[in-house]
């Protein structure tokens, strides 16, 4: 899949996250993760995002995730929704 326009999904309420995806045509996967639990769970959040990107076969995207303590299924759902909206 190709991310062809900017899209967002989610909220910044507790236990949720806010995902922004932007097209980028040649710079690979660029992730920015901001989280209140970055030190402890940052690597797991990144792993979850990368799994979704792999599932959608995305090679180029700029993705920002602002986290308010979302669980992994929430993160997956928000990332998927943002991607579906970016087509």
């Amino acid at each position, binding site marked *: 899949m190709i991310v062809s326009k900017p899209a967002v999904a989610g*909220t*910044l309420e507790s236990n949720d996250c806010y995902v922004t995806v*932007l097209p980028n045509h040649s710079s690979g996967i660029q992730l920015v993760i901001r989280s209140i639990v970055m030190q402890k769970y940052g690597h797991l959040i990144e792993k979850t995002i990368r799994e979704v990107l792999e599932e959608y076969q995305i090679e180029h995207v700029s993705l920002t995730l*602002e986290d308010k303590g979302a669980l992994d299924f929430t993160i997956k759902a928000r990332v998927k929704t943002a991607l579906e909206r970016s087509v």
Partner: protein
Amino acid sequence: MYIEALDLRQLSDYKKLSDFLVPFGLELDLVDGAYVLYDQRKWVGCGCKYRNVLKNFAIAPEYQSQQLLEPLLQHVKEEAFKQGYLKTFIYTPKSNKALFESLYYRLIVEDDKVCLLENGHPSFEDVMKSYETNKRGVTGAIVVNANPFTFGHQYLIEYASSRVAALDVFVVEEEASLFSFQTRMQLVKEGVAHLSNVTVLPSSEYMVSRATFPTYFLKDEKRVNRHHAQLDALLFAKGFASSRHISTRFFGEEPKDITTKNYMDICAKILPEHGCNVVIIPRISADETLISATTVREGWKRKDWALLEKLVPSSTLAYLTSHEYP
């Protein structure tokens, strides 16, 4: 609870919004979107925007514990996003800084009372990185709107460029002028082509823009906010001056426009505190006429070519003679 856009063309709604803001010490100025948070049919909170600047967020005291800022802020931010703004700014008193930071707005600059925060792409750091350059010896900078480029601008730039090893000329990118940014930029480039140590650059939205310096564009001297000018000066010192190793900023003396004069006074105070000198260069006249872009625009309107010849270089004149006054 729900959020709804207000129709700002309805005078009664505009009045209601304006009244709602009064107890919060907020004054309704330029907005292009206003959103109200309702509980049943009661106004509980509001948030406004002008382009990508979010402003006038207020929540009624009896509802303030309910974390209602988050949905309101996200709503307004997404409205801006739908209009194509990938980045939004918030200009707010320092007492609200932590609140917006908890919603991932990041501080770019602050003075003693107010701060400017942003969220989105590209970030202040990314933009400043794109301006980075090697040291080029003593470097100066000058910021022009050049609406349009005159002999006055040319003189200022020639003077400044003769006093430094390298000179950066920043052209204000904000589209708030008779001449488009693209045209202003092109005429500046043509007008300084003979100076080998001059680089012409776009200002970005971090220099004299509607985001960093909103009251500059209201053209009402009483409204020019000292804090806006201070933040703009600090952004220059912190961002541009450090990315481009600028040690002197030149200004053209401003005899008429009070807004610009106040801005210069504030820069003259703040920039030296951050290691950047300020030099103010006196203006030149053509015969008895003070050269100013305002005089040029008036002359263009009247098609007074004899006057324009004395005020603008041939590159600008060529543009004026080949285009109609809009």
